[in-house]
């Protein structure tokens, strides 16, 4: 996708970086003059995707998570990638309440939250290679120009 602005961050798959990732993306998105609701939506979606990479992608090992953002007009594209174990069945993983880790009190709502809070979501995953989540949010505030 063509873009007017771009940024990329890479960090260890440690849970303290979940807050770091969502705050960085929210700061980058602030140039789109978002509403508070739009900012909360993207922070929540990023938090879900990064948490998935940490818990499911890398499990007990540590690897790298990459977050790339591109702005094109009033659209923000967010790509979250890991090189972890991948998802066996993406369709099943995206079902509401499906979780492979009920013992960790995971609710199985991560993908449902991402789908609801963002305008587009695509998931690519390959076993033992990793998972890429691409999400797009359209910001309404710039439409009025």
């Amino acid at each position, binding site marked *: 996708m063509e873009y007017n602005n771009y940024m990329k961050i890479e960090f260890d798959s440690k849970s303290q970086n979940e*807050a770091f990732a*969502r705050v960085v993306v929210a700061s980058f998105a602030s140039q789109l003059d978002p509403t508070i609701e739009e900012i909360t939506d993207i922070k929540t979606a990023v*938090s879900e995707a990064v*948490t998935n990479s940490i*818990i499911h992608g890398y499990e007990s090992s540590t690897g790298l998570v990459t977050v790339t953002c591109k702005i094109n007009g009033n659209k923000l594209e967010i790509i979250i990638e890991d090189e972890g174990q991948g998802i066996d069945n993406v369709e099943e993983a995206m079902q509401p*309440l499906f979780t492979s880790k009920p013992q960790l*009190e995971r*609710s199985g*709502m991560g993908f449902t939250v991402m789908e609801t*809070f963002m305008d587009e979501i695509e998931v690519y995953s390959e076993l033992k290679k990793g998972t890429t989540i691409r999400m797009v949010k359209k910001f309404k505030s710039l439409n009025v120009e």
Partner: protein
Amino acid sequence: MQLQYEMVDHTLIVKFDGELDHHSAENIRTELDDVISQRRVKNLIFDLNEMRFMDSSGIGVIIGRYKNISKLGGKVSVIHVTDSIDKIFNLAGLYNIISKHNNKSEALNCM
């Protein structure tokens, strides 16, 4: 994330102050379960007025506590729910098992 507690009869009111994600969930879970067993809590009210961020990890924390409390015949409710958290609770169907109230006194009346 800081937790503040208030006990009214057998109902524990837990006030969340901060962000609830996967990172903070583990400590919160341990701390809450300790307090619930030590103080012989029957019912639980989560006050979300100062909750500045919550993702689906929060649903896991709340449903987990609900399971323990309901086993012993208690009730769980949430108060001061912000719009964004309300959206997540609705998605998860949380209001099928716990009730939402505007404030503490309303919630206590329904216990």
